[in-house]
């Protein structure tokens, strides 16, 4: 009797375990499929949306009345220099894909006034207007070579020295921004120009 019981229970266990295994495998397969289809679908959607937004050069202005009447995602702080205006527009609109979704600050010497102690409060207050009114969540700060706000390239001894001081100032600006507005993500860029035959090559390096 005992042996029979053992046998039965063992068989039951076997069947049970087989069923369980199959069930678990099925579950895995189904969840895997659903996740994969989800990911693929979202990717396709993203690609479609991106290509559409990149293709259309015009902004849907009626969306400002319906979808997002009072907010945008990014605030761009740039230098006012005319040599970099077109390149930075290209960078922001096409490379970063932020068309129609950013507040555009242009101040001579971009962050110079923020680092100055006497005008720091005033400048941070003006940035605060954008944060307060448009609920900005991300900041892109763009500095460049030979900036007039600093007195041009001739103030610095060499190119490396200039690069180092500019990156140091940018990092300082980031810490100041983070201190005043905690929730912001800060991206820093440093731009340089080089002539290459007839073309001009603008190089924007992200400072980490």
């Amino acid at each position, binding site marked *: 009797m005992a042996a029979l019981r053992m046998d039965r229970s063992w068989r039951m266990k076997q069947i049970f375990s087989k069923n369980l295994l199959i069930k678990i495998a099925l579950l895995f397969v189904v969840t895997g499929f659903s996740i994969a289809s989800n990911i693929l679908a979202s990717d396709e959607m993203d690609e479609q949306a991106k290509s559409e937004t990149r293709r259309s050069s015009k902004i849907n202005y009626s969306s400002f009345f319906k979808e997002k009447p009072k907010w945008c995602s990014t605030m761009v702080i740039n230098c006012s220099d*005319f040599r970099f205006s077109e390149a930075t527009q290209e960078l922001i609109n096409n490379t970063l894909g932020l068309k129609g979704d950013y507040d555009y600050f242009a101040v*001579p010497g971009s962050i110079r006034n923020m680092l100055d102690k006497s005008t720091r409060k005033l400048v941070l207050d003006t940035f605060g207007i954008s944060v307060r009114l448009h609920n900005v*969540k991300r900041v892109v700060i763009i500095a460049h070579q030979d900036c007039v706000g600093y007195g041009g390239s001739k103030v610095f001894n060499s190119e490396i020295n200039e690069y180092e001081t500019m990156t140091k100032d940018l990092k300082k600006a980031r810490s100041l921004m983070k201190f005043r507005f905690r929730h912001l993500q800060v991206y820093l860029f440093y731009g340089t120009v080089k002539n290459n035959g007839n073309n001009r090559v603008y*190089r924007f390096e992200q400072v980490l």
Partner: protein
Amino acid sequence: MGKKLIAVCLSVVLLFTAFLGCARNKSSLPELPLHDRVSEITLNPVDERADCDTLVFSCIDYRFAFANQEFINETLGLKNNYNHISVPGSIYNLVNPKTQELIIGKVTNLVNFHLIKHVVIIAHKDCGAYGGSSAFGSKFAEQEYLSADLRKARDILIEKYPILKVDLYLEELTPSGVVFEKV
């Protein structure tokens, strides 16, 4: 002893979770599509100039930022030939005595370095620095007030630098696009 140990362990775990929670990136914003640290842009400037003589004053507003760029580049034909100052509430800062000093300092800096002769000032309706459209009461009052402020800004600039030529524009957002109007 055992209870104390448990309490200590719990507190340590709580501390760690607090740190992790603080370090977690909670924002729902997508990352910027940056594949490289360095992004290169090549341009072929047709009419290259070493100097520029135009200064554009505008507001930061995101609804007008791209329209401003298009207007300046194509309608006014100033591509790659203008200095751009954009501050919240463009002329409000020039008229307001609190920030006037800083802005005029900037303008003197630019006039001295870049030899500017021509200034374009662009103001827009429903500006956040003035408190939006609702602060004025009616549409007509808004138009009048903004154009009066524009003229005041022109007077301030011309008083400081008599050689400057100043153009004034007022823009308005409509569902089909941005409409520019010369004052």
